[in-house]
């Protein structure tokens, strides 16, 4: 028995729609076919029963939608705030900026913590973006502006980032500060529009990305192969978050179509969908237990959606807040929700009672990204004022 090697095309013109897209290679009766993932799904639906006209299908969708609404209403017996009335009120928070990191020369667009709780990577509008450590910085040059997404590998040995270049590239980190990191870059993901978010799954070997082309995709880092793609958003996908590891293989994504969708990583299915926001969903984050998620939107609200009740259970808004929220994160216990807004502030909400607990001032421009450290003792906010602030 000998090994066979053969060429698999991972990006190029699709055999059926002739557009340049990431391809999935399959064999139909030993004939190799390269379809893009959307055509694959359409092909899977084509062999279904005939005798269905467009009108009959439209009528069916309407009735299914109505049924969904009713099912959800039936279970809405009480508000979260009522259930939480008996919970103790929170004492005043004493949060201050402990550190201001000023290494960037331009707007900071995204940041991520390393699992060792000390290092962070952040990306900005201009090519070079520093990797911060309390005592050192590495700067990595990228041949593109607007690096909109960055992520630290779970092992801490690599970072992934991407943006307007439509790609997600992985850079292995080394201890040698003088080494040129850009030389070791590996292009992993390729979309047909800007990359808006990326994250490693539980290992260094797979990356989940979401893009302005309306899809999210799971890639193998070593080969650059597209493992699974997720179609369902009708506009740019702006954000994604992986479920906390105990609960399983799902992730949530939010997009410009005002929807937040839950996906199964293995099958590529869209399991649940939530569309109560009135504008683009800028950021989604899972609740620490994995049973709910929060979203931040341009409609100036943050909302909490429960996955098992399949509906929105709480909305965090105030008449005085009119600017869109760009990012959210939960504190370790899930009691506090921190949200960064375009009015340069960070609002802290009591998740259970739905009230605002504090407002944090300090940034001099929009807050673009906000993340808690892995041990929950501090959080970092990145802003268009070129700085990152660590609050504790």
């Amino acid at each position: 028995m000998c090994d066979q090697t053969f060429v698999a095309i991972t990006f190029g013109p699709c055999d059926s729609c002739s557009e340049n897209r990431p391809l999935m290679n399959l064999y139909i009766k030993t004939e190799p076919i390269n379809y893009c993932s959307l055509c694959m799904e359409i092909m899977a639906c084509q062999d279904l029963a005939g005798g269905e006209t467009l009108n009959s299908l439209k009528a069916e969708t309407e009735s299914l939608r109505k049924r969904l609404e009713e099912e959800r209403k039936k279970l809405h017996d009480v508000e979260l705030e009522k259930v939480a009335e008996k919970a103790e009120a929170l004492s005043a928070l004493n949060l201050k900026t402990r550190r201001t990191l000023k290494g960037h020369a331009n707007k900071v667009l995204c940041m991520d913590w390393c699992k060792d709780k000390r290092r962070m990577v952040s990306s900005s509008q201009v090519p070079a973006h520093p990797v911060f450590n309390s005592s050192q910085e590495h700067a990595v040059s990228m041949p593109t502006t607007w690096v909109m997404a960055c992520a630290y590998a779970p092992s801490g040995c690599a970072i992934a980032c991407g943006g307007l270049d439509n790609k997600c590239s992985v850079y292995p980190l080394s201890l040698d500060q003088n080494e040129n990191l850009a030389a070791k870059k590996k292009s992993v993901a390729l979309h047909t529009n800007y990359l808006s978010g990326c994250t490693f799954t539980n290992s260094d070997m797979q990356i989940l990305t979401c893009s302005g082309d309306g899809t999210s995709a799971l890639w193998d880092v070593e080969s650059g192969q597209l493992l699974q793609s997720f179609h369902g958003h009708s506009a740019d996908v702006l954000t994604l978050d992986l479920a906390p590891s105990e609960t399983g293989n799902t992730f949530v994504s939010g997009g410009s179509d005002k929807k937040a969708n839950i996906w199964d990583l293995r099958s590529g299915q869209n399991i649940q969908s939530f569309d109560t926001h009135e504008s683009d969903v800028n950021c989604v984050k899972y609740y620490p237990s994995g049973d709910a998620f929060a979203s931040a939107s341009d409609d100036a609200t943050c909302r909490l959606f429960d996955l098992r009740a399949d509906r929105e259970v709480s909305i965090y808004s105030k008449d005085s807040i009119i600017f869109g929220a760009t990012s959210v994160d939960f504190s370790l216990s899930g009691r506090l929700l921190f949200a960064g807004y375009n009015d340069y502030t960070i609002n802290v909400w009591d998740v259970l009672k739905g009230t605002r607990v504090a407002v944090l001032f300090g940034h001099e421009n929009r807050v673009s990204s906000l993340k808690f450290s892995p041990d929950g003792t501090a959080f970092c906010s990145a802003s268009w004022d070129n700085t990152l602030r660590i609050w504790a």
Partner: protein
Amino acid sequence: MTSNSNLSNMRRLVDQLKLEASVERIKVSQAAAELQQYCLQNAAKDALLVGVPHGIQPFEPRSCNLFAGQQNIRIMQRKTYIGTQKND
């Protein structure tokens, strides 16, 4: 060609809605109770709720120390987890 793809798109939509309609749902009261329970169970571990004792603030910038050299070294050692020149 277009009518075919419209048809398959609609079919996809119908399949998707059928899937979503068949999801198992629980009452909001139960879901809310479980969210609250999680919060309260983990409240003790949450540094922002409980507060961090003043000396252990992990990101406090190292304060300037006017004392003699030996005491400086001791303080550095206590705060080594912040990050020192050593790489790991």
